[in-house]
């Protein structure tokens, strides 16, 4: 991964996730009801994809999309091709099942190494986090394993100097934005709402339907030791899954019938200050000075 590509090359890691807006929990068994729930590309990954395509449009080169998942994850890759990605790689193997973030970053970093051998990589992009796993750990995990400069929560890429192999960007941190200069190759996790996803062109959509998707098993992805994959390669284990406990008591309802908004508001304040005498004192105190 240290060799710099002659042609600019980004790889975007995308994940196919269930559209969680449509997920329901079985009321009795407390299990996720996945049947019929449509899948989408993890929404955060689309900002990474768009950023990679924007750089490609400016500097030329190739955008590869990479995913680890079941065979049906090919759909997500085709959708990305339809949006304008150039090449797609799926790694799929039963031995990947049950991967936690450490095992996921292991498998993805192996696939990235193989991709990089054929076509050296300048930037690996990931989303900020997934909406199902929601950990934001896979990006840093990949960076560490491949020894890439890790640049998380990137809000904007200001400049790219391909000859000097440097990149200047803005990274969100607590209380402000860091302007950083780092070196290629690097790993960037892209912040949300940082760009606007393009619509795919008709040509891209047509191409996407027929384009080949490179599909690798664990072995083909260069994984010699399956002990680091899937459940066996995952240090964490889920011992219990349960629904949040609903609160026993409902809200005390303020009577509004026959009252003007002003009277209702007064009633709310009376109840509020009755429930929490400290609140009135605290509120009054802060405006005294």
């Amino acid at each position, binding site marked *: 991964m240290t060799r710099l590509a002659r042609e600019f090359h980004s790889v975007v890691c995308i994940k196919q996730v269930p559209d969680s807006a449509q997920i329901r929990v079985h009321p009795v068994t407390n299990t996720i009801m996945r049947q019929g729930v449509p899948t989408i590309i993890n929404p955060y990954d689309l900002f990474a994809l768009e950023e990679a395509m924007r750089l490609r449009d400016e500097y030329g080169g190739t955008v590869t999309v990479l995913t680890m998942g079941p065979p049906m994850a090919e759909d997500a890759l085709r959708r990305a091709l339809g949006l304008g990605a150039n090449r797609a790689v799926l790694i799929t193997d039963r031995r990947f099942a049950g991967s936690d973030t450490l095992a996921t970053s292991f498998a993805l970093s192996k696939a990235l190494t193989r991709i990089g051998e054929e076509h050296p990589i300048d930037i690996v992009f990931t989303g900020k986090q997934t909406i199902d796993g*929601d950990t934001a750990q896979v990006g*840093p995990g990949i960076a560490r394993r491949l020894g890439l*400069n890790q640049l998380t929560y990137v809000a904007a890429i200001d400049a790219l100097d391909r000859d000097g192999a440097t990149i200047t960007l803005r990274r969100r941190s607590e209380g402000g934005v860091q302007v*950083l200069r780092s070196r290629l190759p690097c790993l960037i996790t892209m912040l949300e709402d940082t760009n606007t996803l393009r619509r795919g062109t008709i040509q891209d959509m047509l191409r996407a339907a027929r384009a080949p998707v490179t599909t690798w098993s664990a072995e083909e992805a260069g994984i010699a030791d399956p002990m680091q994959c899937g459940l066996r390669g995952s*240090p964490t284990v889920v011992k219990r899954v349960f629904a949040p406990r609903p609160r026993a008591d409902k809200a005390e309802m303020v009577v509004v019938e026959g009252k003007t908004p002003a009277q209702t508001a007064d009633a709310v304040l009376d109840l509020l200050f009755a429930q929490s005498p400290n609140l009135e004192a605290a509120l009054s105190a802060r405006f005294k000075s």
Partner: protein
Amino acid sequence: MADAPQQPAGGRAAMQMQLAAKFKDYRHVWVFVEIERGCVHPVSWELMGEGRKLADDLGVDLCAVVLGPRTDDTKAAISQTYHYGADICYICEDPLLADYRNEPYTRALTGLVDKYQPEILLLGATPLGRDLAGSVATMLQTGLTADSTELRIADDKSLAATRPTFGGTLLCTIHTLNHRPQMATVRPRVMAMPEPDRSRTGRMVWHSLGMAEGDIVTKVLEFVSDARIEKANLAYADIVVAGGMGLRQPGNLALVQRLAEVVGGEWGVSRPLVQKGWAPAERQIGQTGTTIRPRLYIAAGISGAIQHRVGVEGSDLIVAINTDPDARIFDVAHLGVVADALTILPALADAFARRLPGRALAS
């Protein structure tokens, strides 16, 4: 944990923990103290409060880790770690740690862990904490549970970290088998802020970074403070007023903002308003936004979806205004008003202005 709930409940989950010999000596609970530009992030003290309980349950020490340049701010942070419960403070002071960068911070923290071998390591789920935790856990090849909402010591003395999954619809409890330290991050405001005990002191242990600027690839060119960008500090606001889709039009957000101003609080929104571009992302409250823990939270025209709820449950008092008497927000609220938010919000602003001394002019 990426696909946590898909893992079979039996099998590995039922496995007895057999800790490898090399991990047997890993002891004590550590909290990484996050300092950025001289300020300790309050989530670090919240974690110390929680870490103290875990350490007491295990009968071990609570240790703080302070990384930073040798300054008065760092010195102040070190003595504060004892006030918030630390027995030992591990310190790495080096000019290279002045601004947060992944490389030197990862080196310092993994170096300390390798040397002093903690069984539990906690960090805040902030941009800095998440960046560092992900890379340190990978270096150490250990498990990391993100955004935990509850930490407990299980019967076998291992750490049980509970976190929401699938956008808060379910909770899952995660253990780290046969690897140490057991790592977890916790979002700001999820744990309560402990009372500091200013008489406490403890032991200091110094560690050297062993790096030169030339070893670090990434350079900080500039820091653009949010003071210039004007950003919300929702997480730590005492009073929060938020609006949802019940506001109907972007212009009506002004009603929420005015009430927030009258009571001296912050304003926020539910996610759809951010998605529609009515408000910036840092105003979003909930699972994928900010967790709040104010003394008073007023939710207007918000239905109370689980993803919103998990972000507000820690509020002391919740007032909900919704035209639908069956709205789920009333399950989590303490006071409910079934009425039109567009008329109640201005009425509330007026009522507060009238009843708070010195506020009448602000209205």
